[in-house]
């Protein structure tokens, strides 16, 4: 999932940067990216979280979020940033991450947590979600102001790079010794 997201990001960024005509659709592309990101991360969390009750809640949240994201994609104007879906998405991921970490702490069998790729993916998501929450909710009103835009770009780009670095680290981590400890790595 993370790999697909990385590929998707590369393609989108490559096209936006290479074709100036696409810049006018950057908000729309951003909203589509939010939907893709939300879907992939939700699947990821659905696989790594063990609690059935929480999973049921996740399904309900995902359905509601999907409906809202599609609705906002259709109805919102093309030339502005939509803070609500981005802010809600960041908060939802933040809660998912906290629950995942809480679940791992409670599980006495999950030792050497930081040797698991799932853990580093969650770390990347929690840092990115936490760090971009405020920029996202202010962006709708202030993105066109140059001071804010600079700050937004600085924060977002830094966290985006950090997130991708952590994703890369997660993909590189060899997890042979502790395969059985994590539900994500269990063979079905």
């Amino acid at each position, binding site marked *: 999932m993370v790999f697909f997201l990385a590929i998707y990001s590369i393609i989108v960024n490559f096209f936006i940067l290479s074709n100036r005509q696409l810049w006018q659709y950057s908000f729309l592309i951003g909203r589509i990216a939010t939907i893709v990101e939300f879907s992939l991360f939700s699947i990821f969390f659905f696989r790594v979280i063990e609690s059935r009750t929480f999973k049921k809640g996740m399904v309900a949240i995902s359905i509601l979020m999907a409906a809202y994201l599609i609705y906002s994609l259709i109805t919102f104007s093309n030339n502005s940033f939509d803070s*609500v879906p981005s802010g809600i998405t960041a908060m939802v991921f933040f809660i998912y991450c906290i629950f995942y970490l809480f679940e791992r702490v409670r599980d006495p069998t999950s030792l050497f947590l930081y040797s698991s790729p799932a853990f580093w993916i969650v770390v990347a998501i929690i840092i990115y979600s936490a760090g971009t929450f405020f920029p996202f909710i202010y962006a709708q009103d202030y993105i066109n102001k140059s001071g804010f835009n600079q700050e937004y770009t600085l924060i977002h780009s830094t966290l985006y790079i950090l997130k991708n670095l952590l994703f890369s680290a997660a993909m590189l981590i060899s997890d042979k010794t502790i395969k059985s400890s994590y539900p994500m790595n269990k063979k079905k």
Partner: protein
Amino acid sequence: MILLQITNQSNPLNISGVLFFGTMGMLALAIGLVLFIIFHQRRVIRYQLQLKEMEEEQQKILLNASIRWQEEERQRIAADLHDDAGPLLATARLYLNENLVKQDISTQLQSIYNAKQIIDDTIQLIRNISHSLMPPTLKNFGLESAVNDLFQKISGSGSMNASSRFHDYRQRLRPEQELLVFRVIQELVNNILKHSNASFIHVTQNYNADKFFIRLHHDGRGITQADVERLNKSALGLGLKNIQSRARVLQAKIDFEKDMSQTYYKVTLEVPVEEYEMIT
């Protein structure tokens, strides 16, 4: 959304500060959380390693105790055979030497009679050694009979009143389980006889929820779980370590405690028993 509405009305100049401190706060929260998890995990790992080391140490002590007990048992059997059976058979051989044929008939008959007596004694001695290794009552009639037999012998000496009551022993345990439980009772009784100065021992048996219970009460000087744990760490208490070693083989729990009335000491052996493990 409330935040958005508030910020819409607020001064744009403050946005930069709110954005900076808000982001920093959220990042600090996230990183703090991750660090807490990592350090907590490390502490758990350290604790589990310590626990594992302690378990290994305990295992080693029990293994050593078991080996020492086996060696002592072998030495005892060797001593019995060497010191008792050996001289008896040597004496019988003397009676039956080559010169016997040269003796008169009455001397020959007397020598043969003496040799027969000695061989009978030797047979009895070997039987006793064999019975000490595996009591025939236990093998043939079960734990209840073996414990009753043992307690009759103790009561017969007149120094102590020993009694037992088996409440639910319609089905016997597996032979190897019975032997282990019997050895535990034997060792406990032996310890009570040696150290407690008790005037009575009472053993009760119960079966409840797939668990076989043996409870032993006595009114002498006893030990509690704390004493057991202290003795486990020292080189003393070989018998106690044997009891624990056997309990471990049985996957049983053994508790040493003082009775509710604080008058008697109580030892409870709790053996998990599956229905199929019991033989009728």
